[in-house]
């Protein structure tokens, strides 16, 4: 089985879908001859032509609007955002036009909006954000955040085949840092299903994307101290896999929710509420949140390190929670 990076896996997934289904096409800024700012669509224009790999003006609302319009005719557009930070420009199209279309007037919108998000690459306030919660709160959208190369390929293929608008957040820190064996053949990873990234019995960490790797690193250290972490990788934030959240809590009774986006109004609050509603009796300690501080993402490396959750934060909180 070939070893692929997270980025290569996404590239292969989109490529395979375009080979398989002539209704799939890509549009975005600099995705053609240049191959995209991060080269995800490198070589696509030579294979599929400028008709299906469309370089657009710098006009995010137009890109999303056009993708939606094309989807109304039965096409499956894949939109690239150069950085997910720029998704704010298209916010109205996404939440008011696209997300509500099926509920309001029965118009499915089988489109994917994908692009790099996330920090730890010293990109500053406009190239490091994790804007996923803006869309988790907009009913009608699916929100996907893969953590591994295998999942990235399987999830992008599932997203393209889904009949709903999917916002696909690719963590840019993982693009070339994670590498694993990825099957060359066709497979999908279903949307809306979490996975157990590490089996454990003492304490659960619920997280996703780059923070899965932070949790895994912490788990190695903690295992030497006799603390056995279970790590749940959510993979999809909307719809959320409630069953997986409840199942891990039933097993360990203790939970840390770890995410890279700001603490207030973050996903941890929602998961805490789900646990409260569905699994309160299984709790054997306080629900712990580890999240970024409530501020924009700072630029300077020491500041960004302070801003982002670190392995040391997980170690500290896990030890504290274990004591209950």
């Amino acid at each position, binding site marked *: 089985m070939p070893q692929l990076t997270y980025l290569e896996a996404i590239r292969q997934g989109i490529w395979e879908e375009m080979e398989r289904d002539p209704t799939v096409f890509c549009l975005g800024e600099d995705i053609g001859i240049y191959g995209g700012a991060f080269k995800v669509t490198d070589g696509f224009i*030579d294979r599929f032509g400028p008709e299906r790999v469309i370089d657009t003006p710098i006009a995010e609302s137009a890109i999303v609007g056009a993708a939606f319009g094309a989807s*109304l005719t039965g096409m499956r557009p894949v939109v690239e955002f150069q950085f997910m930070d720029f998704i704010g420009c298209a916010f109205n199209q996404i939440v008011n036009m696209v997300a509500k279309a099926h*509920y309001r007037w029965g118009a499915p919108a089988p489109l994917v909006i994908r692009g790099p998000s996330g920090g730890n690459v010293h990109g500053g306030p406009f190239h490091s954000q994790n804007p996923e919660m803006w869309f988790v709160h907009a009913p009608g959208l699916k929100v996907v955040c893969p953590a591994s190369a295998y999942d990235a390929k399987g999830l992008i293929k599932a997203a393209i085949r889904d009949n709903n608008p999917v916002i696909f957040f690719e963590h840019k820190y993982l693009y070339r840092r994670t590498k694993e064996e990825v099957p060359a053949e066709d497979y999908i990873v279903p949307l809306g299903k979490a996975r157990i990234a590490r089996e454990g019995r003492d304490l659960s960490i619920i997280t996703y994307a780059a923070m899965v790797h932070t949790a895994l690193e912490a788990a190695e250290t903690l295992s030497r101290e006799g603390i056995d972490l279970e790590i749940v990788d959510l993979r999809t934030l909307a719809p959320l896999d409630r069953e997986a959240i409840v199942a891990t809590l039933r097993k360990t009774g203790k939970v840390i929710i770890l995410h890279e986006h700001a603490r207030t109004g973050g996903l941890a609050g929602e998961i805490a509420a789900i646990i409260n509603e569905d699994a309160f009796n299984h709790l054997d300690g306080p629900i712990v949140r580890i999240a970024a501080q409530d501020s924009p993402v700072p630029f300077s490396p020491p500041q960004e390190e302070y801003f982002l959750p670190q392995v040391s934060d997980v170690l500290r909180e896990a030890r504290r929670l274990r004591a209950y």
Partner: protein
Amino acid sequence: MDDAEPQMAKKQKERLAAKSAQAPGTNQRTYTIPDHRLEKPSITIRQVRKAGKVSYEVTGDLSATVPPIRESRYLSKKQCIEIYRWMLLNRKMETALENLYKQGKVVGGVYFGLGQEACSCASAYALHKDEWMGPLIRNQGSTLVRGFSPRDIMMQYMAKAGSPTRGRDASSHFGDIKDRNVVAPISTLGDLLPVLAGVALGARLQGRNIAVMTYIGDGGQSTGVTYEGLNFAAVQDLGLVLFVENNLWAYSTPADMQFRVKDLAERAISYGIPGVIVDGTDACQVYDAAHEACERARRGQGPTLIEAKMMRMKGHAIHDAADYVPKPLFEYWRKRDPIARFENFLLNVKKWLTPTENRELIAGVDQQLEADRDFAVASPMPEPESAAGGVYCEHGCHEIKPKYAIPKARKGSVASPGGTEAAVHLK
């Protein structure tokens, strides 16, 4: 595929040559905006302070006589009469809605296209059945032409279970991707432009150049997405037919406070597309411009901007008495009522309708509206639980398939994607 780029460049050159002519001996380029109107009123509206109170004052010649209808280059007698009937249905349906509102049967407000019926009906009439349209709030006439019935629209306003959105949205906020090819608008303005452009893009990928039509007002055209959408259509040569309905008032703000160009059609120059001005109260002018723009679209020559000038003859919605509009302006435009003018054209100028035929036609419209009103009023409200479900398309509720044809995928010889290292500093 290999010849795609030279062809594009050639097309671009031709377009530029067609639109700009260099005056001999100068570096100044000249552009033309055809203006089909038979009168060109010069009226300005501005804010003035009098006795401590700020109000709008109108200046200009308001005494001009009403021009005749400009004879259509394309419409037959039968088509003219059909458009006239749509306009009547449009207006009388809105009168019925006003009455339903006064009877307390409408949920929310009522929006009117009074004075704009020619623009809605004659424009949508130029589209083929398998082409697409996205209406704004004042284009209820356009949705009638596309095949929605007055009862559909009445049920929308009354939030009935049988409304096109099954009670889930109001007013003109409905659509149909299956039979009528209408995109449901949202309340924010300009957002339909890129969507309709995208519809044309989808069709082109399926081997068809189609015309897609939408509308924007003198107010709505101020939004950024209006620019984005029209520019996208221009760059991609997509067959977007944009009606800029300059009805002089954006809610309570006059057009003179929205833009500095003399005519909004001039905006077309900056997009590199044709712009045309028509009298929005003249159904023949509206149709002819729409037809020519649709034909361009079908030839794959890209978008057209048509500015239709008229006045919104009511407030923004039923709650708004439009007291801010200077009275003489109402009087001026009332004389230019699109239906009265078209009726006069058909009865007295062309003699295509006898007074008896006209009475019968009007009676037929009244009858249809009465039946639709009774049906809509008697139809049930939705069950509360019907608010649930349908957020996602799931369990096979819709089959996604190409509307026109399976796209022909032309593939290059490269068998696998590239693997270039990203040239970005974020690693």
